[in-house]
């Protein structure tokens, strides 16, 4: 492994190979066709090119584990068939390799599905790798999982564990690419590893190259939410304007062997890459910026600088790395009962008073029928989304008496019946509430709660399986 690393590293330096990493999705359900312009742009570039898709939230993985339990062939991303057929042939033709966590609870199942898809599309000779080993319930009992220290989230009581997955790092992804696989399917890894893995593979970075690992982690962090770095989730008209948001282009990073990093986006698209868009994403979901823990490196953003170097082109440098922690973080998902919600609208003259009366009727009815779980009843349109469950904001401008307001009631309960009852109290307002109530919607959904635990690295043994069309 070390000799191979050294060989790749020397080769990359001599050839001055640039790694280009494009992002095709930043969450489960992100725009399915966003990768198409990214692939078009990558196909015209010289160097080693990758397309990454991040589609695996904590809740998404828990749902996938349930599906796999019902059918061992399932449990990979239900969106695999929506994303990959749009780009698979072009990626294959141009040598663009795909790395994605669409493997979800079943990377091997996903790899088989990709091979079948290639067959359907008439693509011959595709090599697909699956990375497994993140599923703790495959190697530990539920009791053993419960015995691990909880660092964040709910206490792990006796509720059955739906999923428990460790965050793998970039090494297994680099190893999978080393087999020659064109598509790498993983389950739970850090989102940044989807980009860092290809960089380890191309540039031969090793575990002592802490500052390079840190730059690669910044690259992954900037790409992992898709268009959030290219002007999406940013636009604030008049204050922060973004051209052609409807055609927002997804990001492409260029990374050299020395860690030089530039962020741009797919050609002929809308959106914006600027210092401002990059800094917003750089700090997104970061707590202590001097100690951002990953399985590959502890990232310090303290000396990072961000500069505009051209239209829609930004350089990011100065990331520092420290050795990674001895433990791995894992997410444990448990069943959390039901969320029941109901909404109804009031519009026109005196709408606020009618909406507030409707809210008070729902509160009174919940007491009458004996709902013991906490119920939140609010009037949307009054900035209620910023209120607490039991307290409103201090600074508040009085909302206008006339207008359009929507009453919302919500409850969490271990009983589906209670969740439905609260939603039904909103429905009842049609005939038993104030004048002009309209547009009721109800939603009762099953809930997952999560806790983060720390596990010893020795318990987690990532494995790479290479599959080829027979």
């Amino acid at each position, binding site marked *: 492994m070390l000799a191979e690393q050294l060989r790749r590293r020397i080769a990359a330096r001599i050839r001055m190979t640039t790694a280009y990493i494009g992002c095709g999705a930043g969450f489960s359900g992100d725009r399915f066709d966003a990768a198409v312009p990214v692939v078009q742009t990558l196909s015209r570039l010289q160097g080693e090119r990758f397309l990454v898709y991040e589609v695996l939230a904590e809740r998404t993985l828990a749902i996938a584990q349930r599906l796999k339990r019902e059918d061992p062939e399932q449990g990979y991303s239900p969106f695999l068939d929506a994303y990959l057929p749009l780009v698979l042939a072009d990626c294959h033709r141009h040598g663009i390799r795909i790395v994605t966590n669409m493997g979800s609870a079943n990377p091997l199942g996903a790899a088989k599905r990709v091979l079948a898809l290639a067959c359907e599309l008439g693509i011959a000779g595709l090599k697909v790798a699956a990375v497994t080993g993140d599923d703790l319930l495959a190697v530990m009992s539920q009791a053993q999982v419960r015995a691990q220290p909880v660092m964040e989230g709910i206490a792990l009581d006796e509720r059955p564990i739906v999923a428990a997955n460790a965050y793998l790092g970039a090494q297994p992804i680099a190893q999978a690419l080393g087999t020659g696989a064109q598509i790498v399917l993983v389950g739970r890894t850090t989102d940044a590893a989807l980009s860092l893995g290809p960089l380890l593979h191309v540039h031969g970075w090793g575990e002592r190259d802490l500052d390079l690992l840190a730059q690669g982690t910044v690259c992954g962090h900037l790409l992992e939410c898709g268009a959030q770095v290219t002007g999406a989730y940013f636009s604030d008209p008049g204050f922060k304007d973004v051209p052609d948001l409807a055609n927002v282009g997804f990001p492409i990073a260029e990374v050299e062997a020395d860690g030089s990093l530039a962020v741009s986006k797919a050609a002929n698209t809308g959106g914006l890459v600027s210092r401002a868009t990059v800094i917003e994403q750089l700090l997104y979901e970061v707590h202590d*910026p001097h100690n951002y823990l990953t399985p590959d490196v502890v990232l310090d953003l303290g000396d990072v*600088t961000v500069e505009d170097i051209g239209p829609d082109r930004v350089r990011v440098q100065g990331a520092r790395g420290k050795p990674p922690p001895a433990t791995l973080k894992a997410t444990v998902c448990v069943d959390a009962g039901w969320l029941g919600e109901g909404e109804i609208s009031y519009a026109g003259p005196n709408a606020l008073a009618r909406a507030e009366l409707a809210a008070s009727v729902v509160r009174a009815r919940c007491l009458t029928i004996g709902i013991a779980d906490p119920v939140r009843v609010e009037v*949307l349109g009054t900035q209620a*989304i*910023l*209120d607490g469950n039991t307290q409103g904001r*201090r600074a508040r401008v009085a909302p206008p008496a006339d207008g359009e307001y929507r009453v919302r009631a919500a409850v969490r309960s271990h009983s589906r019946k209670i969740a439905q009852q609260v939603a039904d109290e909103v429905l009842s307002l049609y005939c038993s509430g104030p004048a002009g109530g309209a547009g009721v919607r109800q939603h009762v959904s099953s809930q997952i*709660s*999560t806790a983060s635990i720390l596990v010893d690295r020795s318990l987690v043994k990532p494995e790479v399986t290479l599959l080829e069309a027979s």
Partner: protein
Amino acid sequence: MTTVEVPLHAVAHARAGDKGNRSNISVIPHLPEAFQHLVEQVTEARMLAVFAHKGATRVTRYVLSKLPAMNFVIDDTLEGGVNGSLSLDGHGKSLSFLALGDIAVRVPVACIPARSPYHKPAAD
């Protein structure tokens, strides 16, 4: 130098993220010359006061002078977060705009971007 009192929204932008029951909110000046004023005025205590009604217990501020930007980590502010909140916004993604709207700062006019709509009332 003429100074004006404006909402933080006039001089900075922000993005909120979540992990568990903790929120982080970045505060980034539109213009670098505003940064020192923000460091002086947008304190941990003021941020905590803005989120008190949501049960926030502690705010930790990180100052990143080279970006420049600040990152605020606000403990216990998501009422259980996606795990337990009854809010429409369990992730607290809208909270960046709560901070931008509810915190006022006094800054030289030059700290507000030239084309900002906030210049209009001052011109009347």
